[in-house]
C-alpha cells in the first residue's frame, strides 16, 4: 500500500470514529425534533452539563465510575422532563421561531450558569480504558474515540430497535407523524414529548462522558454542539439513520480537510469545512439525505 493511500485511510478511519461521536450527540437532537418538532439549540450545552455533573460526582473521594454514570443518567432524565414541563409546554402552539429562541436562551443560561455553579476550571475526566492507542490498519486511534464510536453504534442499534418494535417507540413515531391522530388513538402526546426530551438527556449524558473524557470538561465542551447542525442537516432532521450517516460524513470530511487543506491555509479548516458543506446541502437538498421531503416553500 502506498504511503498516500495509507495517509488517506488513516484520515478516513480517524474521521469516522470522531464522526460516530458526533452522531451520538446529533441523535439527541434528532430524537427531540422527530417527536416534538422542536429544534434544540442547546444540545451542546446538554452535553456540557452532563460532563460537568460526571466530573463533579467523581470529584467526591471514592465515587465509583458506575455510580457517577447512574447519577448523571438520572439527573439528565429529570432535567429533560423538567425542561419540557417548564419551558417547552407553555410554548406549544407558538411559532417555531419562539421555540428556537427559547432553546437559544436555554443554551445561554446553561453556558453562563454552569461555570458559576460548578467552577470554570477545566476538569479532566479519565475513564479506566488506558491511553495506549489502538492500531486499526494504518490508523492508530486513541481508545476513547473507539469507545465513543462503539457507544454510538450500540445506541443506534438500540434506538432502531426501539422505534421499530417497542410499544413506546411506535407511539413516538405516531406522535411525530401526526399529533392529532395520535391523540385520537389514545396516545398521551404531551407525555411522549417529555419522553423525547428525557431520551435526549440520556443520549447527552453518554455524549458528555465520551466527549468530556476526550476534550476535558469546561464551557468549551458546549461548542461540540455546533457540529450537530451540519450532521443533522446532512442526514435529515428527522432521521435516526441520517444522524449516523451524516455524522460519519461530517467526521470524514472534517478529517480530510484537516489533513489535506490545513498545510495550505495555516490550520483551522476542521472548523470550517462542515459548515460550507451544510450551506451547500441547505441550498440543494434542505431535507438532507434521509429526511422527509416536507419543506414549506413560500
Amino acid at each position: 500500500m502506498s504511503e498516500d493511500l495509507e495517509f488517506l485511510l488513516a484520515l478516513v478511519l480517524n474521521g469516522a470514529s470522531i464522526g460516530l461521536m458526533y452522531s451520538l450527540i446529533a441523535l439527541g437532537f434528532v430524537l427531540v425534533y422527530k417527536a416534538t418538532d422542536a429544534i434544540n439549540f442547546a444540545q451542546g450545552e446538554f452535553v456540557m452539563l452532563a460532563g460537568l455533573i460526571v466530573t463533579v460526582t467523581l470529584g467526591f473521594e471514592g465515587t465509583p465510575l458506575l455510580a457517577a454514570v447512574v447519577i448523571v443518567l438520572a439527573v439528565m432524565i429529570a432535567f429533560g422532563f423538567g425542561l419540557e414541563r417548564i419551558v417547552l409546554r407553555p410554548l406549544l402552539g407558538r411559532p417555531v421561531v419562539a421555540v428556537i429562541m427559547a432553546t437559544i436562551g436555554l443554551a445561554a443560561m446553561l453556558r453562563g450558569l454552569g461555570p458559576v455553579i460548578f467552577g470554570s476550571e477545566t476538569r479532566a475526566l479519565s475513564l479506566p480504558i488506558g491511553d495506549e492507542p489502538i492500531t486499526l490498519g494504518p490508523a492508530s486511534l486513541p481508545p476513547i474515540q473507539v469507545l465513543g464510536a462503539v457507544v454510538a453504534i450500540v445506541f443506534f442499534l438500540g434506538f432502531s430497535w426501539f422505534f421499530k418494535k417497542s410499544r413506546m417507540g411506535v407511539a413516538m413515531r405516531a406522535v411525530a407523524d401526526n399529533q392529532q391522530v395520535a391523540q385520537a388513538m389514545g396516545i398521551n402526546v404531551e407525555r411522549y414529548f417529555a419522553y423525547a426530551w428525557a431520551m435526549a438527556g440520556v443520549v447527552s449524558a453518554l455524549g458528555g462522558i465520551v466527549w468530556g473524557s476526550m476534550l476535558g470538561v469546561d464551557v468549551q465542551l458546549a461548542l461540540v454542539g455546533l457540529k450537530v447542525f451540519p450532521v443533522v442537516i446532512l442526514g435529515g432532521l428527522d432521521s435516526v439513520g441520517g444522524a449516523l450517516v451524516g455524522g460519519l460524513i461530517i467526521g470524514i470530511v472534517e478529517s480530510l480537510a484537516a489533513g489535506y487543506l490545513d498545510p495550505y491555509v495555516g490550520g483551522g479548516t476542521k472548523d470550517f469545512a462542515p459548515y460550507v458543506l451544510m450551506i451547500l446541502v441547505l441550498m440543494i437538498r434542505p431535507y438532507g439525505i434521509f429526511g422527509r421531503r416536507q419543506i414549506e416553500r413560500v
Partner: protein
Amino acid sequence: MFHREAGIFKTTYGADMALYPLPIAKWTVIALALLFVVIIPLTVHEYYLSILNLIFIAIVGALGLNILVGYTGQISIGHGAFMSVGAYTAANLAVRLGLPFWLTLPAGGLMAALIGVIVGMPSLRIKGLYLAIATLAGQLIIEWTINHVPAISGGAQASIEVARPSLFGVSFNTQGSLYFFLLFFAVLAIVATLNLVRSRIGRAFVAVRDQDIAAEIIGINIYRYKLLAFAISSFYAGVCGVLYTYYFGIANYEQFQLIVSIDYLAMIIIGGLGSVLGSIFGAIFVTLLPIVIRIFMEDVGSLFFTQAEMANVISGLRLGVFGGLIIFFLIVEPEGLNRLWRNIRSYFRVWPFSY
C-alpha cells in the same frame, strides 16, 4: 381648554399611523430632544456618557435586527457577523485609503447588506428552523474567514486600529464629543425605522410575517421583500459594527462573536418584537444589565467568590441571566417591555375616567 380623553376615537387610517398619535407625543419628543442634546451632555459625568454611548450603538443594531425578526418574521443568528463585516470594511477603508467616516460608514453598511443578502438567500426556499441554522452557519463561516484571512483582518490578533472620526477638522475623540456623534446616528436610525415600518415596505414586511401565503396572494413579492428585509437589517448591523469600531478605535473580531448575535436577540425579545420603542428599551436593558450585575456582585458576590474568580462569575451570570430572561419573556410576555409600557400608558391615558 384643559381636558382629558375618554377613549380612542380615530376615524382614519392616517390618524392611526401618524408619527405623533397625540399632541402630548410631540411635546415629549421636544422634551427628550432638549434633555439629550442640552441637559445630559452638560451635566452628566463622563462614565455615564460612555454607558449612554454604548446604548446608542446598541439601539442601531437592535432596530436592524427587529426589522428582520420582529417585523418580517425571519430569524437571524448571524447579526454579530454582519456587524463584523461592516466593522472590517470600514476599518480597512479608513486605514488603507484614508477615507473619512461619512464614506466608510455607508460603505460598511452596504457591504454588510450585501453579505446579509447572500446569507439570507436560503430564506427564499426554507424558513423557520432551517433559516436559523443557515444564518448560524453564516455567522461561523464569516467569523472563521475574518480570523484566517490576514488581508481582511490586518494580521496581528485580527484587529485593526482606526483613528477616531472627524468632521470639518473637529475630531470626536472624547466621550463627550462621541456622545453627539453616536446620538446623531441613533436618532437617525430611530426616525428611519419609524418611517420605514409605516411605509409600503414596512406593511409588506408585516404581511409576510403574519401570513406569507396570503401576502403573496395580495400581490406582495415575498422573495423581494424577504431579501430586502435581510438587506436593510444587515445594513443597520453593518453601521452598528462601524460605530463600534469608531467608538473603541479598533476593529476586533472578538466583539462580534456568536454571543453578540445572542445578545441582540435578547434585546429585541426582552424589549418587544416588532416595535421600535421595544428595540430601544431592549438596548437600554441589555446594556445596563451587566453593569448592574457587576455592581451587585462587587457588593454581595465577594462573600461567595474570591477576587480571581469574579471576572468569570460576572460574565457567566450575565449570560445566564440573559438566557433566563429570554425564556421568561417568551413564555410570560412575548411582546416584551414594550407591552408593559403600553399597558401603563393606556391605563393613564384615560385615567381617571376609564370607560
